[in-house]
């Protein structure tokens, strides 16, 4: 999670969404907007999870297929796909997800670190877990989503 020190006594607000049939969420403070799907212009030599770039009111926005990034099964694209525009430090990217579910307020103490286990790819992207209405929600570590410059340049 990002910096929570200021609101340790209050709950963290999370935006939860569905990706590859599973529940994920991100800190709502890093979400800039949610928009409908758009046709992306594909980038040559890009990793498979980079769908390409889309036009967000004049800005070139990289679009990440989150299901592919997380190693989940990618369903076929529908018009119902949603793009969550998030800030990653100085960069802004779009995350393509199946659907946005809810906004949750989760108190700090209800969040657990993911248990240590043999790391598959997805494990690296989850910073915490929580349970809401009997469903496990994974909280994404956004900084792990976007590959660093050197990795993608190769």
């Amino acid at each position: 999670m990002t910096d929570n020190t200021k609101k340790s006594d209050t709950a963290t607000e999370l935006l939860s969404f569905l990706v590859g049939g599973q529940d994920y969420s991100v800190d709502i403070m890093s979400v800039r907007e949610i928009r409908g799907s758009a046709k992306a212009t594909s980038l040559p030599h890009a990793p498979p999870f980079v769908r390409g770039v889309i036009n967000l009111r004049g800005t070139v926005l990289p679009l990440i297929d989150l299901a592919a990034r997380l190693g989940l099964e990618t369903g076929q694209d529908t018009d119902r796909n949603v793009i969550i525009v998030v800030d990653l430090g100085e960069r802004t990217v779009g995350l393509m997800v199946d659907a946005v579910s809810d906004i949750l307020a989760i108190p700090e103490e209800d969040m657990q670190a993911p248990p240590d286990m043999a790391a598959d790819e997805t494990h690296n992207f989850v910073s915490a877990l929580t349970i809401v209405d009997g469903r496990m929600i994974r909280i994404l570590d956004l900084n792990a989503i976007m590959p660093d410059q050197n990795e993608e340049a190769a």
Partner: protein
Amino acid sequence: MSDPMEEIRASYFVECEELLESLQDGLQQMDDGHDDSETINVVFRAVHSIKGGAGAFGLDDLVKFAHRFETAMDEVRAGRFVPDSAAIKLFFQCADILADLVRAARDDAVIPESITNPVLDTLDEMVGTSEEVEEEIEFAPMVLNLDLGGGGASGLPDLPGLPALSGLPDLPGLPDLPGLPDLPGLPELDSALPLPPASPAGQTDNSGNQLNHFRILFSPENSLYSSGNEPLYLLRALRDLGEIKVRCDTSTLPGLGDLNPENGYLSWIIELSTEENQTTVREVFEFVDGLCDLDIATADDTALIAENAVAPQPELTVTAEPDTSAARLPDLVPEIADILPDVTPEPEVAPALDKEPEPMDTSTAEYDAQSAAGAQSSAKATPTQPRATVRVDLERIDRLVNLVGELVINQAMLSQSVAETSLPQNSPVQTGLEEFLQLTRDIQESVMMIRAQPIKSLFQRMSRIVRESSAMLGKDVRLFTDGENTEVDKTVIERLADPLTHMIRNAVDHGLESTADRIATGKEPVGHVTLTANHRSGRIVIDVTDDGAGINREKVRQIAINKELIAADAQLSDTDIDNLLFLPGFSTADKVSNLSGRGVGMDVVKSAILGLGGRISISSVEGKGTTFSISLPLTLAVLDGMVVQVAGETLVVPLNAIIETLTLTEDDLRALGPQTHVVQIRGGFDPLLDLGAELGYRAPKDSYIGDIVLLIGQEDGKRAALVVDAIEDQRQVVIKGLEASYGRVAGIAAATILGDGQIALILDPVDLVSEATGRTRVPPKHLSIAG
């Protein structure tokens, strides 16, 4: 520190940059043999103004250095020291240090005296000024000698402190002045002057301009004040005409008891040196005609010189606002201190008193008691009318550029939707749209012009690099520049500084032979490095040329083989060998010098230039020299492109890269290997590249017959044919960088937004072609370019 102060400080540093630029200019001119007084004055004034501002902000280091530099320049200006080329070199060095000090002061850094002092000592030694004397003058009190109206001192009985003041014993240049036996009293002088002749007597000053000298007696009547006129404005108007010296005659000022606040008591004696004729001067007083006693006379030469010599003494130099002067002179002129606050609220007299500082303040501020002559000509600084300019925050311009970019996209969208409504060709909507298109282009160009600035500042930095590196290497090098007024986008200039610095150092270090070698080969001992800029077909081309030995191709080749950059039996053309210099890790210098040759060199330069959308090429003639040529886009914001379709994707190919387009026939196409083809165009064979396959959009096709190809030309004359599916349009597109949001993509320069709101990628054909050819050489995995 409060905000306004910060702002003033910031603008001082901006001014400093300008002053440093004109200082460089001036020194360059002196170096080129223009030693006229105007040039020297420019240099002097630049240093002087920097010092003045620095003093105001308490930047002591800067003041100290600037002061001694100024002193030296003053010697030059006074003709007591005639600089030779070595001296000018030293002046350049001083200017460089001054620039460093200014920047250090700006960034709150400190430059140790160990750097500045040796230079200063050399300077003092050379010019023959001694520090002690100057130091003393430096701290002499600000001159505050009140004008006594020439010889009319006695006319002011109630200013008791004045005689002492005019003595000013600690002005070494002046001690004998008060004693001048034939100090002409004002009345005599006036009568001695000829009355206005029909054609004013003209004389030529050093700078070659025809100057007329006038002596104007201006005594406002009370009605002038009561009709709302303000002598200050008249004096200012005169100041705008030329060099001006104003004296206020206060001799009719009565004692406080007799003073009628409704009356004006002051009159002015103005000496004006201007290029204008008498009519123009008289026009200044047009509106107060009949409200004052006015006498405009052409001052003859001798009278003027006499006046000048006397100037510091009788000249009225009440410094600041009336209350300030009152505060400064409490014990000297108690009466005035009393008068002024009283008088201020009164409309008639107050402005009259108020205005005194105004026309004078330039001369007062400039007057730092160096010498009579010094004060005399520093007052000249006033009337040079600068070109009207506005300083604008770069961020604001960028915002404007972005907005215009959006406008262009919007306009494209609009055109597209109008086209879809299938209106008749000549409908008013269509014509209106065309005009709109024209206007958008015009706006865009104008906005780009705002960002553009002369490349001069960059060239000046380079001249410093040449000076420093040649001094370090003990080579005698002269830098010639041409086309320094060529305008380039500011961003380009900024990002060009590092690569160009490197190239210049290379030219001095590796390009030019040592002085001994030059003499041995019968060349002029002084090496020449030439830096030129010019516009060529929508790009700016910057050449760095040296007249050195040229590239030793055999040596280059040998080094490349030794470093296993090429195979020992590789067949390379001269151009190929030259281009080896751009390979990473290549260094030809036998010994690693302090300046260049650390193995990071031309490859870094090349990638910096490529990053700007530019190209770099070399041409070299053995024994004659080497030229590095950089070609850059004028702006990083827009480009003309051809919109093409490849494998369902829309791409933009920069128009300037395309030589021609053609449809392939069976005859054009030749198979080179199983996967590779060449195209035979006009007798030449060019590699065929399938754009869709190169970008990974699709597998290579079996046959390319009937396909459209774009023939791409590179700076070095290499060509390649790119297969595309369709050509859609040709239009201007706004460049949107990909690097910030995503990262560098091989073969892609940037992105843009098309009329339908979709993003299209802008191809970097040269990168793509070199990528592709690079890949064939190293088959399995292609090398990455980006770091």
